C-alpha cells in the first residue's frame, strides 16, 4: 500500500543478565515491516527470534532488558498524526499505552499454542474478554464479533466452538481459534511465532492459506517467525536471516532464495532437504554447531563455521556490520566491504 514502514526496529539489543554471565540474545537487530506485507524471520534455534518479537511487544521480563535501540511503530491510537511514529522502547512497562497497543494494534500468536488459552475458560469467554478490553461494546456485540472472527478463520460451527475449552479442540482447530483470538481487534500488525511448527503439513497448509487470505483482505502486516525455509518461501515478502542474535542478511524473498549474499544464508539453503532432492544423496552440511550464547565473541558470529572466511584472521578479529548493498538488501559480512576483493 504505502511505502512507509509500519514498524522500524533499529539496533535493538536485548540482554539477559544471569549469574553465569550476560546473554546478548538480540545484538543489534534492525528491520522494517511495511503495511500489508509479510516479513519472515528465519534462523536456527536460540538465534533470538522470539526475544526479538517479545522485545517489540515489550514482554521482556527480568533478568532480561532492552539495553539499546529503537522500536518505532506507527500507531493509530497513540500517534497524533499518521506520520508520527512512537518509540515503544520509551513507553513505561505496564503502561496504559502499552496495554492499549498489545492485543489491539499489535497481536501475537505465541510459540506455545497451549499457552495462548487458559484451560479453565471457554474459548468464547476468552475471545470476549479481549474484545471488552479494547472496545466499548455490549456482551451481545462482543459475542457477535467473536463468532464472526471464528467463522472467518474457518472454525466450523463457531457458535458451539464458543462454548468449548481449548483442550477439547484438535490441533488444527486450536491453531485457528488462536489466530481468531489474535485477530479479534483487527490488528495492524500480527506477529506469529512459529505458529505451524508443531502441526502436520496438511494443517500447516490450512493455516498458511488462512494467513495469506487475511493479509490480502485486511492489509494486515505480518511478522512470521519460523526455521522452515519452505514456509518462508511460500509466505514472506521480505526476509530477515538471523544468527546468534544478529541479522546476517535481509532483503526481498526472491533475492534471499535466488541471490543470497551471505555465506550463512547460502549454507542454510544448501543444507535443507527438499521433496525434490534425489533420494539417498548426501546433503551439504554446515560444519560444527552454534556456539554457546555465553561464549565471548569478537569477530563475525559465523566465523567458526564459515567456509568463505577471509585470510589473516580478518573475520575473527573484527565483527562486520549490517550494510545495505543495494536499495533493498542488507548484508553483514566482510565479503561485501569495498576494500576486499570478492571473486
Amino acid at each position: 500500500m504505502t511505502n512507509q514502514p509500519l514498524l522500524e526496529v533499529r539496533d535493538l539489543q536485548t540482554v539477559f543478565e544471569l549469574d553465569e554471565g550476560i546473554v546478548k540474545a538480540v545484538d543489534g537487530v534492525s528491520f522494517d515491516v511495511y503495511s500489508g506485507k509479510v516479513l519472515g524471520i528465519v534462523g536456527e534455534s536460540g538465534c533470538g527470534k522470539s526475544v526479538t518479537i517479545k522485545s517489540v511487544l515489550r514482554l521482556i521480563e527480568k533478568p532480561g532488558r532492552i539495553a539499546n535501540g529503537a522500536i518505532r511503530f506507527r500507531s493509530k491510537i497513540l500517534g497524533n498524526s499518521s506520520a508520527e511514529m512512537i518509540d515503544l522502547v520509551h513507553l513505561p512497562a505496564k503502561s496504559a499505552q502499552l496495554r492499549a497497543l498489545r492485543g489491539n494494534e499489535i497481536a501475537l500468536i505465541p510459540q506455545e499454542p497451549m499457552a495462548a488459552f487458559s484451560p479453565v475458560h471457554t474459548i468464547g469467554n476468552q475471545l470476549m474478554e479481549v474484545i471488552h478490553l479494547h472496545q466499548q461494546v455490549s456482551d451481545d456485540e462482543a459475542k457477535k464479533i467473536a463468532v464472526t472472527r471464528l467463522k472467518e478463520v474457518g472454525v466450523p460451527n463457531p457458535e458451539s466452538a464458543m462454548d468449548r475449552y481449548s483442550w477439547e479442540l484438535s490441533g488444527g482447530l486450536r491453531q485457528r481459534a488462536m489466530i481468531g483470538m489474535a485477530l479479534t481487534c483487527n490488528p495492524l500488525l500480527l506477529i506469529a511465532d512459529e505458529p505451524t511448527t508443531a502441526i502436520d503439513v496438511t494443517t500447516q497448509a490450512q493455516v498458511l492459506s488462512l494467513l495469506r487470505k487475511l493479509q490480502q483482505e485486511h492489509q494486515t502486516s505480518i511478522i512470521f517467525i519460523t526455521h522452515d525455509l519452505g514456509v518462508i518461501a511460500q509466505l514472506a515478502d521480505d526476509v530477515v536471516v538471523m544468527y546468534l542474535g544478529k541479522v546476517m542478511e535481509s532483503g526481498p524473498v526472491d533475492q534471499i532464495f535466488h541471490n543470497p549474499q551471505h555465506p550463512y544464508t547460502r549454507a542454510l539453503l544448501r543444507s535443507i532437504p527438499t521433496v525434490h532432492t534425489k533420494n539417498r544423496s548426501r546433503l551439504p552440511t554446515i560444519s560444527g554447531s552454534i556456539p554457546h550464547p555465553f561464549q565471548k565473541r569478537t569477530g563475525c558470529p559465523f566465523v567458526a563455521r564459515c567456509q568463505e572466511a577471509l585470510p589473516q584472521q580478518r573475520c575473527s578479529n573484527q565483527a562486520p556490520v549490517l550494510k545495505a548493498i543495494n536499495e533493498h538488501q542488507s548484508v553483514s559480512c566482510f565479503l561485501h566491504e569495498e576494500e576486499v576483493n570478492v571473486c
Partner: protein
Amino acid sequence: MSAELAQSKLTANTPMPPERLLEVKELKKYFPIRKGFFKSVVGQVRSVDGVTFHLNQGETLGLVGESGCGKTTTSRCLLHAINPTSGEIRYRQADGQLVDVTQLATDQLRPLRREMQMIFQDPFASLNPRMNLLDLVGEPLLVNGVANRKERSDRVADLLRLVGLRPEYMRRFPHAFSGGQRQRIVIARALALNPRLVVADEPVSALDVSVQAQVLNLLLDLQEQLKLTYLFVAHDLSVVRHISDRVAVMYVGRIVEMSPTDELFLAPKHPYTAALLSAVPVADPRIRSKMQPLEGDVPSPSDPPSGCHFHPRCAFATDLCRQQAPDLEEVQPNHFVACHRQAELALTGVSEPI
C-alpha cells in the same frame, strides 16, 4: 476365525524371500477405552488396524503420515515394546532362523532386543542427565554382559568415533552437548550392540536444519558401513524423500500406499499421498503453490469413518468408498495402493529433482 488362524499358521512356515529381514502381516493394536467406576471397556482405539509391510536387508523404509495415524505404535509393536492385539511379525535372525516376534516369551526376546534398536525423537528427553557418555553409551554393553571396564571404554570410544564425537568427551555429561551432538550420543548408544535393525522414530524432528543435515548424513554413512536396515518414522516428507529407499504412507491406522521413494513422490497413486505432497511448502518463492489445503481433520482412531477412512476428505469419494474399505493391492511391481479408484485417477506428485 479358524480359517484365519489356519492361514496364519501356514504363513508362519512359508519361507520368506531371502532379501527380507522383516515381514509384518495384518498387524493390529487396539487400546481399550475404559469408562465409569468399574472401568468397563466402552470402546477401542484402533491405533494400528491391519498393517502389512516388509523390510529388505540393508534398506530404509520411510513411514509417514499425520500425527496420530499410528506410526509410533507400529514401531513399538515391532520391537515388542508393546504387545500387538493380533498379526504377525516375522524376523530373520542373525543365525538365519525365522521367528514370529509376537509369539516369543520374554526370555526369548532378549537376544532379539540386541538385534533391534530404537532411536527416539527427543534427544533431550532420552538421555539420563546424571550419566556421562561412558555410562550412557556403555550401559547396553554392561547390561549385555560386557563387564570388563577397559573393554567397555574401548568399545565406547570406537562408538563415539563412529558417530563423529571425540572419545575425550567420554567423561562429560549430556548437558554439555548441543542437540545434534546429543542425537549422535543416542545413535552411538543404539549401535552399541551391533544391531541389524534400527527403528528411528522422528530422529531429526527436534533438530535444527543445519544439524539435521549432519545427522541424516551420519545415518546414511552408518547404514553403508554397518549394513543396517532402517525403519525411519517421520512426518517431514522432505526428510523422508532424502533418506528412504521405499516409503509407506499411513492414514488412521492403515497403510494406504507403499512404493519406491521416487515413484511415490513423482507419481503418487493414492489421493491422500497426493494431498500430503501438495501441502509441503516448496522452498522456492518462484513456485508459490495454489495451496489448496486438504479440508477437515484427521478422524479419531476410536471412531474412524466407514469404508475408506479417507472418504470424508477425499475429492474422489463415491458410494463404494463410503461402504467398503479398499484392500492394499500391488498395482505395479513393488507399488501397493489401497484405493478403489487408483486405476482411473491421474494424480500429480512433486516435480523432478532440481
